[in-house]
């Protein structure tokens, strides 16, 4: 595993992104220590209060503390991001390894199915899955995870195709290693770099998709705090309480920027061949 120091030496912007990600994770974990309020606690007398010493990010139309909701919202965003990308990576890795290693009919079936999933805008795919499963936290993670499966399957398969022709795989076969051992012990470790890079970038996308689904009322359900849902609830009152849309927007932006910077940095360090954007 690449540590942050190695990243910092090679790419300080990526390291800054990684550091912010780390801080966000810590904030999400210690949320109850950071704020005296509960994310669902209503204080009707103080509704739509502007930022002040008592409420540093102000309150919403129910008098709920915005800072508390944003801090707890970080838990939701990071949880959804990590678990959904995890679903995408594990399933994609498995399918990509099978398709790339065994080739033939299995490869054709898996890849045509992946092409099918890719031939449709990801957010709409997630919408359809959510509609079928019903909107809640777990199903949001599953829906977003499914949209990432074809991405990781393609990357894994592509890498397996080049690695399986290497001599060490031939050597492995020659000494009688079975397929399972060859795949898990020898091929998989050699294809992980591009997958780790893509996963760190996919986290940003997953957080954006969760925000979008929750904004449409099809993700995390109120009163649970989610940045997307907060924006949706507040937009009708933004004229009188603009802070209720500004702070959740900034929270999403900061998180996504830091994951993007971290991902770009990792790409430069782990897989310079993939570098394609400034």
């Amino acid at each position: 595993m690449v540590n942050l120091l190695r990243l910092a030496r090679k790419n300080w912007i990526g390291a800054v992104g990684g550091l912010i990600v780390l801080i966000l994770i810590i904030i999400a974990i210690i949320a109850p220590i950071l704020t005296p309020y509960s994310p669902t606690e209503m204080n009707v007398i103080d509704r739509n209060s502007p930022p002040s010493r008592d409420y540093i990010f102000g309150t919403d139309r129910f008098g709920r503390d915005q800072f508390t909701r944003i801090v707890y919202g970080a838990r939701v965003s990071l949880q959804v991001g990590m678990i959904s990308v995890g679903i995408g990576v594990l399933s994609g890795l498995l399918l990509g390894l099978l398709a790339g290693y065994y080739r033939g009919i299995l490869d054709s079936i898996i890849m045509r199915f992946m092409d099918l999933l890719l031939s449709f805008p990801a957010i709409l795919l997630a919408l359809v899955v959510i509609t079928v499963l019903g909107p809640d936290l777990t199903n949001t993670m599953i829906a977003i995870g499914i949209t990432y499966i074809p991405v990781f399957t393609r990357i894994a398969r592509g890498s397996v195709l080049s690695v399986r022709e290497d001599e060490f795989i031939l050597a492995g076969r020659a000494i009688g290693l079975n397929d399972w051992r060859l795949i898990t012990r020898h091929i998989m470790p050699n294809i992980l770099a591009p997958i780790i890079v893509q996963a760190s970038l996919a986290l940003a996308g997953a957080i954006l998709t969760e925000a979008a689904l929750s904004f449409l009322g099809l993700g995390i359900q109120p009163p649970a705090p989610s940045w997307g849902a907060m924006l949706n609830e507040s937009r009708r009152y933004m004229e009188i309480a603009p802070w209720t849309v500004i702070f959740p927007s900034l929270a999403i932006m900061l998180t996504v920027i830091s994951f993007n910077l971290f991902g770009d940095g990792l790409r430069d360090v782990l897989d310079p061949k993939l570098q394609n954007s400034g």
Partner: protein
Amino acid sequence: MIYIRTYIIKRLLGLIPLVLGITFLVFIAINFIPGDPARIMLGVEGTEAMAEQVRQEMGLDQPLLIRYFNWLSQAVRGDLGYSLLTRRSVSYELARRFPVTFQLTLLGVLFSVIIALPLGIISAINRDNILDFFIRVFSLIGISLPNFAIGILLILFFSRSFNWTPPAGFVNIWAQPTRALLILVLPVLSLGASLAASVSRMTRSSMLEVLKKDFIRTARSKGLKERVVLFNHALKNALIPVLTLIGLQIGYLLGGTVIIEEVFSLPGIGRLLLTGIHNRDYPVVMGCILVIAISFAIINTMVDITYSFIDPRIKYD
């Protein structure tokens, strides 16, 4: 030219299994949605006997595969059924709403490209100076803020600073261009911002890559003007990955219209889809998915075909 024609026909034929596959998947998926369409159609006052009759009339009592083929055979004739709630023809609703989504997407792409290409080029030419820095920061913000947040913040900014909000409703751009543009300006900005950001990033890195190549040094050493080197030699070659990105991103833009139409209350296909999803109105959902899947596939085919005009070295087979 013959090659291109054969290629286009091949690609268009290739769309058929893709569209069949995606509609079949969605059809199966929708079948698993809890709730009985007959009951939804009848509302709270319908009896079980009435529901049974509706199920028979709509063919809901038949096996899934038969129902899919029935839907498909009607769909190819342009009949996408009727909305369970409004009883309006789905084809009619889609035809009425398609221009909204189409104009929004098209203007979104145009806006992104018009903004992003010059920014990417300027950024590449001024590599690592202050201008480059600012363009890159703006690009980063553009890809990191979700389009609905950009939309909301834009509405907030314009209403606070200029006391102006976009007019409600939708008019055809050809009939009332000024009003249509006023209605669409903020939605287009919100929708196109992230595409503009990624296109400018890609243009910058692609230009930097091309500017390192030997043929650029040759062009400069034979005394060509810098403008000619940049635009006639470098840009043309740098555009291929940019075009690929635009093609890929138009799909996201199509998905993004669902959210933008919701934010700005635009009566497009995305909003129709959302209403259909919220009401479990499956003929509407299927119709919207069909139109979006076909549009997405056609856009990707068009992008592939455009490659040859930019880079004649790309052969079709």
